[in-house]
């Protein structure tokens, strides 16, 4: 494959299709972070005392921490005092009860993104808890869910309506002391999603949330907590797009999953935050802590992610396999183009007997992007008969990008079986030639090959997401081939 610099310019010329700013009045606190801001956030959200104390404790701990520098990414230092920590759409007071009451400008935003909320909800049978900036503005299919006892809604509603559940599980998977960004999130998180699946219930539909960053200068700190009680099953989808902006925006979410005996959680993500322009200016900093705790026997958590956006991604969805026979899975496609940087991977901590984990990671690097896989497989002494299989492959497109692999494997039990394999190569010229000589354009051929490369991961995605993911990959790779 010859690399033609002019062709590269043509990708560079591609505009970010989800880039626009909706002009909605927002209720924003002045930039800066101190205890008063946290008290203000807590007061605005009418939170109980224990949650405020929890936030303050997290803040105090955060002050003692230093920003981590070990990831293989480079960016100018973030000024945590320069961004505003709370922003909510004005229409909060008279919160809409149904879609008709939703600010039409918001709905317009979704239309522009190609996600007609109403249609999407109706046609796909998906309950959408749309997080527009920080406050949840539309919730659908609530009734159908509440009929079977599933609690699904915004985090702030859950704090009001189900404080006992929130208190019981919040911070038990990702404690406030976990890491720099998790501590920050715990102190200032504004909203997010909460989901509880009661015993023996199979959630009747796929749950999904669309995260958007809208108001300028607000770091977004989402908090998601999903609890699957004994014998339950849930599939949760998360997708993101964000408007174009020049300043870097910090996104430090925390996602906690708790799987009790015999339950199963499937968590799928399509991440398409604004990646910055062709010169690497702007774009979202996506520093996320995602962790699942397979507490119960025979529980299962499956992470599937398609990461195509963000200027910097720093994310390791992990599984703590505590329960006997519990299963952790991680399927990932991470695509970086232009000046994007991704340092992503997973951690599988085997604690219980006969625990199993599978890691399939596919990294695609184009332009001047740097893409790293960083993973840990840890078999502790008690994890008798546990099993891990890891495969991480990288594909390179263009001679200025990089692909890196940093797998850590620690085994303390001889009955465990751990396998790791990885490969890095460029697109096979023979495959490309084969397609070209059958009249397929180079771009289509590359798309086809890349899609084939990612197939193992895509097949884990729910149907409608899989289609979206394939399109996303094609759009993100536009012109990346010379």
């Amino acid at each position: 494959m010859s690399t033609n610099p002019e062709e590269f310019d043509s990708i560079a010329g591609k505009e970010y299709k989800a880039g626009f700013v909706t002009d909605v009045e927002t209720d924003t606190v002045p930039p800066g972070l101190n205890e008063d801001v946290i008290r203000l956030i807590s007061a605005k959200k009418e939170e109980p005392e224990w949650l405020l104390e929890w936030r303050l404790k997290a803040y105090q701990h955060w002050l003692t921490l230093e920003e981590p520098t070990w990831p293989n990414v480079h960016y100018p230092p973030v000024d945590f005092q320069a961004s505003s920590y709370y922003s909510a759409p004005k229409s909060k007071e008279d919160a809409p009860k149904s879609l008709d009451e939703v600010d039409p400008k918001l709905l317009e935003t979704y239309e522009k993104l190609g996600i007609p909320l109403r249609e999407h909800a109706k046609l796909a049978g998906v309950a959408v808890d749309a997080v527009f900036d920080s406050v949840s503005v539309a919730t659908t299919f609530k009734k159908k869910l509440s009929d079977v006892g599933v609690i699904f809604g915004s985090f702030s509603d859950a704090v009001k309506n189900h404080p006992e559940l929130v208190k019981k599980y919040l911070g038990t998977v990702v404690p406030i002391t976990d890491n720099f960004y998790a501590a920050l999130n715990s102190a200032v998180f504004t909203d997010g999603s909460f989901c509880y699946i009661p015993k023996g219930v199979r959630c009747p539909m796929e749950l999904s949330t669309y995260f958007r960053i809208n108001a300028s200068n607000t770091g977004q700190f989402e908090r998601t907590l999903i609890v699957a009680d004994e014998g339950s099953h849930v599939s949760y989808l998360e997708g993101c797009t964000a408007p174009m902006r020049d300043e870097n925006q910090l996104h430090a979410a925390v996602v906690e999953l708790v799987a009790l005996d015999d339950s199963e959680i499937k968590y799928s993500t399509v991440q398409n935050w604004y990646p910055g322009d062709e010169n690497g200016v702007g774009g979202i900093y996506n520093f996320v802590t995602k962790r699942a705790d397979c507490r119960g026997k025979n529980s299962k958590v499956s992470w599937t992610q398609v990461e195509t956006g963000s200027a910097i991604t720093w994310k390791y969805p992990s599984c703590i396999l505590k329960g006997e026979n519990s299963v952790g899975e991680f399927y990932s496609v991470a695509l970086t183009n232009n000046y994007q940087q991704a340092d992503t991977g997973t951690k599988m901590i085997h604690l219980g007997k006969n625990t199993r984990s599978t890691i399939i990671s596919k990294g695609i690097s184009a332009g001047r992007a740097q893409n790293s896989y960083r993973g840990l497989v840890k078999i502790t002494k008690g994890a008798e008969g546990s099993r891990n299989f890891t495969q991480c492959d990288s594909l390179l497109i263009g001679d200025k990008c990089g692909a890196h692999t940093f797998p850590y494997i620690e085994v303390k039990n001889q009955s465990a079986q751990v396998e790791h394999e990885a490969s890095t190569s460029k697109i096979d010229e023979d495959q490309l030639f084969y397609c070209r000589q059958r009249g397929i354009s180079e771009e289509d051929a590359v798309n086809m090959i890349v899609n084939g490369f990612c197939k193992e991961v895509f097949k884990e995605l729910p149907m409608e997401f899989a289609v979206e993911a394939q399109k996303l990959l094609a759009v993100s790779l536009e012109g990346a081939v010379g």
Partner: protein
Amino acid sequence: MESLVSKFEQFLETEDNVTLSNNSLDWLTNARKKGIAHFAKVGLPTPRDEHWKYTNVAPIKKKEFSLTNTKEHDVKAADLDVFRFKNLETIELVFINGLFCSALSSTVSDERGIVLNNLSSWLAEGHQQDLTVDAGDYVFASLNNAFMSDGAVLHVADNELLEKPVHLIFVATDTEQATMTYPRIDIRLGKNAEAKLIESYVSLGEAKNLTNVLTNIIADENSQLEHYRIQEESDAAYHLANIFIEQKKDSRVTSHSVSLGSAIARVDAKVNLSETGTENILNGLFLGKGRQHTDHHLLVHHLSPHTRSEEYFKGILDNASRGVFNGKVVVHKDAQKIEAIQSNKNLLLSPNAEVDTKPELEIYADDVKCAHGATIGRLSDTELFYLRSRGISEEKARALLTFAFADDVVNRMSLVPVREYLERKLIGQLSSSDQIDDLKDLI
């Protein structure tokens, strides 16, 4: 170990004990000063260092080792027979507690331009050649720079071939005061030159010494080197080694590292494939028993297009031993048409054994073929059953399968007598004595 900085001044002044008394050489004095300055700045590594995450050198830190080695010893040529390779004629250089033993050694200095000598004699001959090694971040290499006391020099001139393999035997004896030695091995191959060199690290008795060795290899155009290091020091010893390899156009270096002994053994290999057409192969086998700790850290830089590297390491860990492997391949920008293969397979024989492995790839070019694999597990039940069903006792079946696992690495060596030597060693380690002969028949 902590008092090393204060010992340095004294070390520079004592001439009688230090064989490299020729301190008038600028490069040597500078290397020593730079080395100790680096150590004084960073100190001994701790597990907080990413490269020392799994290897804690605290036991070494606490111990006191003597730098002053006595020339007296009662080692006889016959004592070393067990460490020699049957049916292989080698040129032998013997070092006892770090000091060259001329009575047991032979050297080469011929008109063809092949020089094989111990470092201190070579310097005493008045050679001015600068043998400085840039230690980079490797603190034990810096310490070797600071305290290098003797070692070996093998320089092969252009177009020359050294037919006989060189065998360097570093012997540690059970001295009253535990000693530390800092051997330096300098290997330089000219254009189209060819040589084979074996380093053996052995103990007589329960030697509690510390070896901190640095092997520096520079292979010029189209040269070929086969390098072996067999480390079988006593279980009370500490072994720290650095191997720096610099390869020029079309050269080929193969280095085998076998780690059997020492309480803590750490080998750091750094390879620079600086010019096109180079090939580097690193093979390794480590066996752990008792509470042994073995660590291999490899770093291969592909700096030029059309270079190839291979890492093939296997570990067998028994009892409460721990094996660490870290292989890193860096493909630099514009180094296209690269092939890099990395493999680390580990066998755990006991519930208390542990393996930590980290095969890394860092790639900044696109036209590459890089692959790595790592496995950790125990002996396969089906394979054991197969042998058991054919009337082979369980113990023997286990020994046989373990042996086969290890022999895979040994078979990658070209010198058959070395292979046989190691196979005998392996059998000795893997099965109880009464079965050795039996097993030999099976092989």
